């Protein structure tokens, strides 16, 4: 993690004020500032406390089911006819996605701070489910803000949250998706700052959230390193992950940032195409701005008004991206590309038929991009893709579309 980074390391950020280059920071209302400073202090202390690390490791092993397998996707490799494709199978985690890695860390931190009431925002509902799960486990009160449109398209997850005892607040402002859920969660937090802990679900928000969530997700990349050494005796050539806010991607990428021979690719949601204006690709189609507590690339108009994102995947449907990704983009360490709705749907079907794994729509974007280049790579090369979630939640939304595309 960051603490062991070398002086010229790309893993040393953020600085003391939470900046990654010009990105990051703490752009929040004064009401929240004292609280954010206390979260930062508590996290710094916890990070250095072996007991806290031991607790996290315990829940990784016995509750989440870590390490998740690093699986050689032989049939897909054969299908593409190029480099070897491995999946990091975080879809096998308890609750079905990588989101739980972060939630366990933050819930344990909340517990340490004596907070028993939790707020979360959610897009696909995976972060909401993970948060509701941890709250059930630790006996905490849980309120989840979710865009009204997402409540519709991710219904199974809404039911799971309710079953787990969480209160789900549908958010109708704006486009009724993740951005609006985050606005509403922040508004709610402003009114409950003294009693509630806000578990943010991705590597965005005011400092210390981007760094803290990254640290909790870095277990993904740390495991991949060890597992790849065991399987192939070397590091992979290429890493690929999808980007909503960027937490599963950062979790995979961060431990590899200083391994400069490793090519790293983040895949944004291209929606109906980058030229259509209907996408969620903040790096490929946005410019730097300030929203939700940090400076980062944002989809916005000429007047600095935030524009609405579009993606078939609720988890990627966000007009921003974590600040560390913005920095990695600008310094050129990570390449960011986009995959469209239709390509993601095709990859969804392909993965299901070839590997017997129903992926979530989010990592289907990553797989769609893998399909564009892996066939051209030599057979002795290795690509690792983060299969960060499973697709059960997407069935209702996906089936009619696959039917229409003739993919069933």
């Amino acid at each position: 993690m960051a603490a062991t980074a070398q002086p010229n390391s790309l893993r040393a950020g953020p600085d003391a004020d939470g900046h990654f280059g010009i990105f990051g920071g703490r752009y929040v209302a004064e009401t929240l500032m004292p609280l954010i400073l206390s979260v930062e202090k508590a996290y710094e202390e916890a990070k250095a406390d072996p007991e806290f690390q031991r607790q996290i490791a315990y829940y990784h092993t016995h509750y989440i089911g870590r390490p998740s397998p690093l699986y050689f996707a032989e049939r897909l490799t054969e299908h593409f006819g190029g480099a070897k494709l491995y999946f990091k199978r975080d879809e096998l985690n308890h609750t079905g996605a990588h989101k739980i890695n972060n939630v366990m860390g933050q819930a344990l931190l909340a517990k340490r701070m004596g907070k028993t009431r939790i707020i979360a925002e959610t897009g696909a509902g995976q972060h909401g489910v993970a948060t509701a799960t941890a709250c059930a486990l630790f006996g905490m009160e849980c309120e989840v803000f979710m865009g009204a449109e997402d409540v519709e398209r991710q219904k199974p997850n809404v039911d799971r949250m309710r079953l787990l005892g969480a209160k789900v607040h549908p958010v109708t402002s704006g486009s009724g998706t993740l951005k609006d859920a985050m606005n509403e969660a922040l508004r709610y937090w402003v009114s409950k700052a003294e009693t509630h802990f806000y578990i943010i679900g991705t590597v965005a928000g005011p400092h210390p959230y981007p760094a803290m969530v990254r640290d909790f997700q870095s277990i993904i990349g740390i495991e991949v390193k060890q597992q790849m050494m065991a399987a192939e005796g070397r590091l992979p050539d290429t890493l690929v992950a999808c980007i909503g806010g960027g937490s599963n991607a950062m979790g995979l990428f961060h431990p590899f940032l200083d391994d400069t021979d490793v090519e790293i690719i983040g895949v944004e949601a291209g929606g109906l195409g980058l030229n259509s204006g209907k996408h969620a690709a903040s790096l490929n189609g946005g410019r730097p701005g300030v929203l939700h507590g940090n400076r980062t690339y944002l989809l916005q108009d000429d007047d600095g008004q935030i524009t609405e994102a579009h993606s078939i995947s609720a988890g990627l449907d966000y007009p921003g991206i974590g600040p560390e990704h913005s920095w990695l983009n600008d310094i050129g360490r990570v390449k960011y590309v986009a995959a469209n709705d239709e390509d993601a749907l095709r990859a969804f079907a392909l993965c299901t038929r070839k590997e017997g794994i129903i992926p979530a729509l989010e990592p289907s974007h990553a797989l769609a991009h893998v399909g564009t280049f892996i066939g051209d790579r030599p057979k002795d090369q290795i690509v690792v893709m983060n299969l960060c979630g499973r697709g059960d939640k997407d069935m209702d939304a996906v089936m009619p579309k696959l039917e229409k595309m003739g993919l069933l």
Partner: protein
Amino acid sequence: MSDARGKAGVSRIDAKFAALRAEGRGALGIFVSAGDPDFETGLAILKGLPGAGADMIEFGMPFTDPMADGPAIQESSQRALKAGMTLTGVLEMVRAFRAGDQDTPMILMGYYNPIYSYGVDRFIEDALASGVDGLIVVDLPPEEDRELCLPALARGLGFVRLATPTTDDVRLPAVLKNTAGFVYYVSIMGITGTAEVPTDLVTKAVERLKRHTDLPVCVGFGITTPEQAAGIARCADGAIVGTAVVKTIKASLDHEGRATEATVSDTLGFVRGLADGVRGARRPAPHA
């Protein structure tokens, strides 16, 4: 007041509070979103505010994602954006207002992204040239002072900071350090328009602030009636009303959200009521 002529930026704010001190009363600050419900109507409301008794104007720069605002101000911001308001349009309205009013402090209030997008230096220059006196930027805490606060202060543009119930004595000096014009005390834990102002707690909070600063202290978030405004103007240097004003605007619109004959007069009438309350609330003479 002729002695305020030629003053601009933070000195116009200072002059206004000095004049009100001499009158022995607190200020009434009125918040409206620029261009709500449309440019023409919004400008007519703006121009009528001083005559209706507003001593100071908090002029909202509409933003798609107003994170510290409740539904009423979110909607007013949306109405303005839908009618085509931009930051350039906001400054145009200020310029038109200034042509007829040299005394009333004009504080732009909003969020950082539109300003950042406009360009900080160009914004400060254009704001001063248009007749803006101060800024309240909700999502720029002291930790981010280098962004806008310090460059604005260096050019004589006021930077008004929000202090809240969570701003403790340890943090207060940092919050007050680069504040100019006045201090805006947020009277409730929460977003605009979601709770009623607790007058007794506010009195204590203002006293606490006064121990740390000589700047005027104004109070806002949750003041809706002339009586509340009067109560606040008695214990603080000013009362700021926003949600109740934009709700009055909303109530006057037709079913398609367009301005009606009543929009300007209802809004200014409501402000007049608040002003009567504040003017009736004489304050004990200051010792100093």
